[in-house]
């Protein structure tokens, strides 16, 4: 198989001349089969006396440079690795449909109607401590987003819904969410409500409210994969 060398265009017209050195075969077999990267000393041990292991490795590395597998040196030891531009080949992405938990749906509903709203406010409305998990799951869905920080002690993050929320639930605007009378009319709310009970008129206007500060640069990252300290912050 003479056309092995695609590597160096002009550098080395070696196809014709010298045959592929046996030590390259030996090296590639050892490196392929070994369960760990190998250092040059242990490779040299198995090669015929007098072989310049380092030079042979460099040559092998060059041979593989344009291939789907590269010869790389890691911590001074050599090993074959899939070419980094092909890493996508080695992952399988699947979509997995999951149902939101009841707590997450309630939290989402409260965010939708009461936005911008902080976690403490959600808890007050729900009357239960909202687990951090619910908010995280909702952030993962992309249906809610951190909007800003409330101008109040602790400066808690305020949440609101995103465009993805509207599109998932087929809403033209959050203002289309049914109000008190509609909820009553559809039987979702019954009559036994205390006087003064109201359902807010939701708005997802991205403009910050008077009592909101903008998020700081780091906040968005935190919001999407928050480290545990954040809980304490709020």
């Amino acid at each position, binding site marked *: 198989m003479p056309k092995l060398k695609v590597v160096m265009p002009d550098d080395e017209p070696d196809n014709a001349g010298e045959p592929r050195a046996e030590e390259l075969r030996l090296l590639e077999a050892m490196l392929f*089969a070994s369960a760990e990267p190998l250092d040059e000393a242990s490779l040299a041990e198995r090669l015929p006396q007098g072989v310049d292991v380092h030079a042979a490795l460099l040559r092998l590395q060059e041979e593989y440079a344009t291939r789907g597998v590269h010869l790389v040196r890691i911590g001074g030891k050599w090993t074959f690795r899939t070419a980094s531009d092909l890493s996508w080949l*080695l992952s399988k*992405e699947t979509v997995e*449909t999951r149902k939101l938990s009841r707590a997450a749906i309630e939290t989402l*509903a*409260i965010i939708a109607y009461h936005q911008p709203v902080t976690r403490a406010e959600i808890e007050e409305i729900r009357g239960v401590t909202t687990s951090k998990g619910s908010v995280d799951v909702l952030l993962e869905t992309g249906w809610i987003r951190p909007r800003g920080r409330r101008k109040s002690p602790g400066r808690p993050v305020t949440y609101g819904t995103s465009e993805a929320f509207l599109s998932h639930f*087929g809403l033209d605007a959050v203002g289309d969410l049914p109000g008190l009378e509609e909820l009553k009319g559809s039987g*979702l709310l019954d009559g036994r409500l205390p006087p003064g009970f109201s359902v807010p008129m939701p708005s997802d206007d991205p403009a910050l409210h008077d009592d909101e500060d903008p998020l700081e640069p780091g906040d968005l990252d935190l919001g999407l994969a928050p480290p545990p300290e954040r809980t304490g912050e709020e």
Partner: protein
Amino acid sequence: MNPDEIQFEADLAADRATSEPALVVDVEGFEGPLDLLLALARQQKVDLAKISILALADQYLAFIEEARKLRLELAADYLVMAAWLAYLKSRLLLPETNAPEGQSAEDMAVALALRLKRLEAIRDVAERLFGRAQLDRDVFRRGQPEPIAHIKHPQYSATLYDLLSAYAQQRQKSALAHVRLVKRTVWSLAEAREALERLIGRSPDWARLDEFLISYVVEPSLAPTVFASSFASTLEMVREGVMEVHQQGAFAPLYVRKRQPAENRVADPGGVAAPPADGKE
């Protein structure tokens, strides 16, 4: 069986040393009568197809005879084969008159030869199979596989109905819970009575109910409920005869004291022994 042959068997037996545990019928290393027959046949050094079954039968029977002399315990397999071979031998030697039933002696001999051939053939291919390059011995697979990572993208589903019903239920539940919370701010009759008892127990003189209340009420918004409960308790205690209440006139302050013995009922703040007042705070 001559001495050479016995020597041969011994050598073969050494070859057969295998790690096969129990259950193998092992006569001097042979794995059964067929194996023994095959070994004997190989001594004839001819193609198994051309083997003399008669000679083979003789050798086998001689071997068995020898083994019995040595009092080796022979497995039934060997003896059955010996009996069968003796029978085959007699049939082969006798002129074939009329085959009793089924196979002729020749057919039986051919079938035996075929079985030997088959065993030999399978041994041959077994050897060739194990002569192949074997994985993890001669050839090797990837030492550091890079497994395919499975990345799951969750896609959440929820309907607008889920959302609205969750919201409605949640709001309704907490709205009702709030009403209960408001009730808590009421000063109960029991609380009022306990406070009154402490008050009148402390002084035998008339005390002004509202003055006393002020020391209790921290939160101004609580005043009405404290007043109402205290007044109701007062009436109750008067009815029980443990307390007296006095009021100068409509909307005047209320005075309370511990019920006095009948003889020294003196109006202290300048009043008469009061009948149960009906004034309001």
